[in-house]
């Protein structure tokens, strides 16, 4: 995983709530056995017309949002299916940061496994970020994970909370499995006890 660095990027706006993973990556694209190449299918059903051309009414197709790394979206982003294809598509498209008031649990976990920082803000903070983007499409925000800060030109910046374990892993780009396997002795010891306590699970 790429270490997450401080960056200044265009912030794209999706002023919709309850964006579900079926929309982020529709089911017809879940048949691949690889992890890569899902970005071209991100938001497929909203993004493209039936004839395959770009749907100009879809917000992410606005020229001002081209190259955005930050996605600002409405409440409960990523609800529905557990498909990790959703964050794979988001990351492959070029986003590394999402800002919303809330996320579905599984989606939120999946983001951090794929180098995506999902920032939680309150309703007022989200409203002011949305207003700033609406007033100035193409505006660039600074994301400083080390200091847990979002900085905006109009001064709508703030400090955000994040679990220190998730933060550390994003900054170092560390592999979760490697970290867990440092505890392999404890896992083995647990299994020994587990076999004695619940023998019927092991026959």
């Amino acid at each position, binding site marked *: 995983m790429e270490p997450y660095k401080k960056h200044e990027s265009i912030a794209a706006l999706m002023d919709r709530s309850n964006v579900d993973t*079926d929309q982020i990556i529709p089911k017809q694209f879940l*048949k691949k056995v690889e992890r890569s190449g899902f970005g071209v299918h991100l938001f497929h059903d909203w993004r493209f017309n039936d004839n395959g051309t770009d749907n100009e009414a879809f917000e992410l197709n606005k020229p001002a949002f081209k190259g955005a790394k930050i996605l600002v979206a409405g409440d409960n982003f990523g609800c529905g299916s*557990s498909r990790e294809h959703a964050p794979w598509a988001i990351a492959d498209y070029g986003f590394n940061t999402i800002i919303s008031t809330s996320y579905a649990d599984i989606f939120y976990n999946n983001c951090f496994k794929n180098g995506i920082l999902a920032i939680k803000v309150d309703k007022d903070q989200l409203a002011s970020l949305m207003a700033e983007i609406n007033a100035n499409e193409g505006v660039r925000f600074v994301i400083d994970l080390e200091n847990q800060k979002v900085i905006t030109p109009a001064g709508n910046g703030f400090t955000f909370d994040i679990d220190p374990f998730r933060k550390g892993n994003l900054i170092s780009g560390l592999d979760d499995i490697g970290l867990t396997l440092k505890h392999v002795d404890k896992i083995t010891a647990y299994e020994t006890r587990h076999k004695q306590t619940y023998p019927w699970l092991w026959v």
Partner: protein
Amino acid sequence: MKKTMYEKIWDSHLVVDEAGQAPLLYVDRHLMHEVTSPQAFEGLRLSGRKVRNPQSILATMDHCVPTKNRDLPIADPIAKKQIETMAENCRENGLNLYDMKNPNNGVIHVVVPEHGFVHPGMVVVCGDSHTATHGAFGALAFGIGTSEVEHVMATQTLPQKKSKTMQVVVNGELSKYASAKDIALAITGKIGTAGGTGYVIEYTGSAIKDLSMEGRMTLCNMAIEAGARAGLVAPDEKTYEYLKGREFAPSSQYWDQALAYWKSLVSDEGAEFDATITLTAADIAPQVSWGTSPEQVIGVDGCVPAPESFADEIKRKACESALAYMGLKPNTKITDIPVDLVFIGSCTNGRIEDFRIAAQVAKGTKVAKGVIAIAVPGSYHVKQQAEDEGLDKIFIDAGWEWRDPGCSMCLAMNGDELTKGQRSASTSNRNFEGRQGKGGRTHLVSPAMAAAAASAGHFVDIRNL
């Protein structure tokens, strides 16, 4: 300290709990299907790691499999490759796989309970959000992403954040034909799709106790639709009776020991929950979803709401866009909405009890002109059981298609799908835009409601039948 069932299971599965890092939780059972596993196996191979406990895994093929003409090769080459990859990965790692031709094949969350693979008190995961189903047995069961699938294969553990606890109490008796599905939809309607975010729900109350194991599975299955990490029902005599004698249930040698343990799992009297929601069973009418989110539901005797009826601006906007997508006008009576296709099946409602009740409603009727009705059993065992009871004949005589098992139209990956503008009555779990096919319009209902809609050609208040 008094503990809830969730806290008891959590505490007994903690492997590492140290300051400065996420607690590591031990995983007893790992369920798999073809869509969310291939990249995890690839990751394992690339890092030179092995599956730690192959016995903890049960795999099936369900999302992409055809539900008819199964003897023919799979037409879609990408789906075919995914199916072949699954078989190869399971063979290479020595995993128990019920492939497409296996008599045990079916939808993962239908197959697993049939074999007694999940017991009370276990921690169960699967790369599938509807893993919550197995909470019906008093197991902590939740969906994970593919990176986590790889993590569990390699370590048999997962770093987890402890959830808050929510008690959903449903007391009293359900009205005629109202079912577990209606309870699940009514809960989602009441608390919203984010209402359970950060929580594990425990369903309690006399109406929950009265549910069969199949009903409890339907209810817990949709805990995720209310945003919850998992749903739980306390194990009781029905649970033990269901499990006894099944292939992976404790043998007679260990049965009493297991039973004593299971009985100790029930939430302590007076244990505190972080939130409590109460519903009265008698108030729950058969539900129909009218929008593009499972929280957009109403009783069958109601009308499609008007956007202005929502005080909250976000909900008003969501209603507007849902009605536009669904092609519905405000204040239309639910019973005036016509249907083009009826689907009974899925991990929510693909069990024997679902086909029994649907057959009871369908018996002696004919599918309305212009309507397509398909019944897709959740597994080959469900299919066989239904055929032994003559249910297939009732459906076929009424003009239904009687298919082979699979996820089918629940998420429409296998070619069974709606075309643009087609409207379904579906016993599945999600009505998101495009879920059953691009431009398709889904109304979520119970099996009895689906069967009644098939013969009438529109929704019907089955309480009046």
